[in-house]
């Protein structure tokens, strides 16, 4: 009769298993957080649109990221590291580790962006994800980073929801938002066009468009304007003529285009073709407003943008030392001035690295604490606060106008007003940002 019993087998298996696992338990410390760097380098994940409609913004973002990595590793002229008020960065990487990077293509699609971010985190060991040229994408990737336990430093995302109802503890936004655009634009519009205006809105039918429209409507109604209509236009629309045509007979004397990218270029072109800017309605000149501008889009719109008001996060024409240093670094490396997309992602990379240095760790929770409530200057936007309650940066906002006779293709917009930070601030529980909570930071692992 055999001496093997089921109990005996289980006991010996447990002992053997424990014995086999012992060396691993002794020699391999459990990672404290996702992708804790163990070698001499640390990997950042740059997730930008390399194909699709925002590929030009993505290319400019990538240029700025590469410049930031070069500066962090001690290369080049150091750019805004010299003007940044925090002096934690030494040009020896981050926490003494050389900075390396991987890139992903968001294709300006949420699912593709999540897939590329996931791949960078799981396969390439990226410890931080940054990028995006669309709020839909940014919100999707921010959610993924929260689940995966890595920091997300948002790039070009302007929807209120990114740091409103969809905010996350692991996500941080340097770029301004739709509310700030409205708050900055309203006084300028009142001065330029008066208090008695009737506005017709065309709005891109997705997260950013909705919050942009809500914000600018509230701001213009706040100065006495009436809202005649708001028409949602599908994101895929290329010919806006059938949406523009009814505007003339609507009684409106202002058209507000809550469009971005190719949508903005095409809707503005249609509006100009239909002669809106040459018309007089209600005894006033008909006007067009584009709440969110981008230098690359202004270039695409050509002469149609002349005289049109909008807002931006930053402009290469600003005269502060941080801007000068960044424009010099970027311009000498690439031969043309940077866009405000490039500036925001460069600033985000430096801010992340600086937070790691100040926290003394790559742990997302430590970095989060270092960024929350952080006040800084010297990155091109004047004194700036990373607000603890929603992880939104608060700084001055620029009101821009299309230039009448630009000197060159990079000079299509001019600064009309630098709106002070106090004018665009709002309470964390403002109704336009309500409905979400940061939750707890997730270190993953």
């Amino acid at each position, binding site marked *: 009769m055999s001496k093997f019993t089921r109990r005996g087998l289980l006991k010996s298996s447990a002992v053997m298993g424990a014995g086999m696992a012992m060396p691993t338990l002794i020699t391999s410390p459990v990672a404290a957080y996702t992708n804790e760097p163990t070698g001499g380098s640390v990997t950042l994940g740059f997730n930008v649109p390399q*194909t*699709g*409609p*925002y*590929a*030009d913004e993505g290319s400019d973002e990538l240029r700025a990221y590469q410049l930031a990595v070069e500066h962090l590793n001690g290369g080049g002229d150091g750019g805004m590291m010299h003007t940044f008020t925090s002096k934690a960065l030494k040009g020896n990487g981050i926490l003494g580790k050389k900075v390396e990077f991987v890139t992903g293509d968001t294709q300006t699609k949420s699912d593709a962006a999540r897939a590329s971010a996931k791949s960078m985190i799981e396969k390439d060991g990226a410890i931080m994800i940054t990028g995006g040229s669309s709020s839909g994408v940014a919100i999707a990737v921010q959610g993924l980073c929260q689940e995966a336990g890595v920091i997300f430093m948002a790039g070009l995302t302007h929807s209120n929801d990114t740091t409103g109802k969809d905010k996350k503890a692991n996500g941080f936004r340097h770029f301004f938002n739709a509310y700030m655009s409205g708050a900055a634009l309203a006084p300028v519009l009142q001065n330029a066009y008066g208090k008695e205006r009737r506005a017709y809105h065309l709005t891109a*039918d997705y997260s950013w468009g909705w919050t942009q429209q809500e914000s600018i409507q509230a701001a213009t109604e706040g100065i006495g304007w009436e809202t005649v*209509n708001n*028409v949602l236009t*599908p994101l*895929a629309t*290329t*010919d806006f*003529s*059938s*949406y523009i*045509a*009814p505007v*003339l*007979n609507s009684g409106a004397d202002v058209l507000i285009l809550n469009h971005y*990218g*190719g949508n903005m*270029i*095409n809707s503005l*072109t*249609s509006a100009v*073709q*239909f*002669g809106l800017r*040459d*018309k007089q309605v209600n005894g006033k000149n008909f006007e067009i407003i584009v709440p969110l501008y981008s230098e*690359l*889009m202004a*270039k*695409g*719109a*050509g*002469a*149609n943008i002349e005289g049109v008001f909008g807002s931006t996060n930053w402009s*290469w024409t600003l005269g502060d030392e941080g801007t000068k240093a960044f*424009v*010099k670094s970027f*311009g*000498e490396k690439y031969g043309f*001035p940077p866009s405000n997309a490039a500036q925001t992602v460069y600033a985000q990379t430096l801010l992340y690295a600086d937070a790691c240095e100040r926290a003394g760790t790559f742990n997302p929770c430590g970095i989060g604490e270092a960024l929350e409530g952080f006040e800084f200057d010297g990155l091109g936007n004047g004194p700036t606060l990373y607000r603890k309650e929603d992880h939104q940066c608060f700084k001055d906002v620029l009101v821009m106008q299309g230039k009448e006779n630009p*000197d*060159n293709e*990079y000079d299509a917009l001019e600064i009309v007003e630098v709106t002070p930070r106090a004018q665009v601030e709002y309470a964390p529980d403002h109704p336009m940002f309500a409905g979400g909570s940061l939750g707890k930071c997730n270190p993953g692992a």
Partner: protein
Amino acid sequence: MDALLLQILNGLDKGSAYALIALGLTLIFGTLGVVNFAHGALFMIGAFCAVTFSKILNISKITLDPEKTNFLGKPLEIKTPYVIEWFGESTGAALIDWAVPLSILFAIPVMLLVGYVMERGLIKHFYKRPHADQILVTFGLAIVVGELVKTSFGANPIPTPAPELFRGSFDFGVLIGMEANAVIYPFWRLVYFGFSAVVISSIFAFLQFTTFGMVVRAGMADRETVGLLGIDIDKRFTFMFGVAAAVAGLAGVMYTPINSPNYNMGMDFLVLSFVVVVVGGMGSLPGAVLAGFMLGILESFASMNEVKSFFEMLYLPSIDQIVIYLVAIIVLLVRPRGLMGREGVMED
């Protein structure tokens, strides 16, 4: 009334583009039996012929202005186009201003060549393959062409304005006795409609009144019999592929002032143009033109606020996005061969 008239006019120029693209698609399908999903790319290549020609006219001599500086504090580069240097200020500036219409002369040979290379180099190898294979290979080709254009020209739209003379709009309402500002219509869209009418008429006249056209029509009806008569129908069909490419290209050239071209513009039109072909009837040239204008106008009507509100009450939101497909379903249910489709086409 004025709103209806305005949307009819809007639909006409949109329909013009659909009709021109669908006409080319039908020509290729009718002659070679190929379902060409790269046809939208031909429209886009045509648009970029206008962009390229405009860039050629703007090739400039660069001088440095010592008194002005650029963003890096270095002397500012002053660009003077060579056409202005060579032909003087007024003639040179006029050439640049008229770049889009002039680029037709540039686009025709380019598009004929592109069509020839595409047909001989790739598509002819798929004549005897199933339609699914043809769709896959031509769709893949369209993606490759799009990415190549994006690599060369970037992803953002490139402004390509109409000549100064045709910018702005005119009061169509006043012309027909309505009050001022009731129906405003851009000049260039009227030019586009007129241009497409001329191109469509020319194609029909060519097929109807020339011996070459007669042989092509005979080949479309019965390729085998025409071949038995000793006529090299393949050569004629290859030429027709080039003609179809040129038609799509010209549609693209003239469309650039309406919407600034970008690398994806062909894809935007492709699917809708296929719906137009199917609604018009596979292989029917008049059907393609009729359906193009009809669906263009319907699409314009569907984006009227009143129409959208009405359909929202019927639980059909965003009718402007689905109207073409809805009409396609209805037409195919009532007339499975499309409006003017022939018996036996794509039915084996």
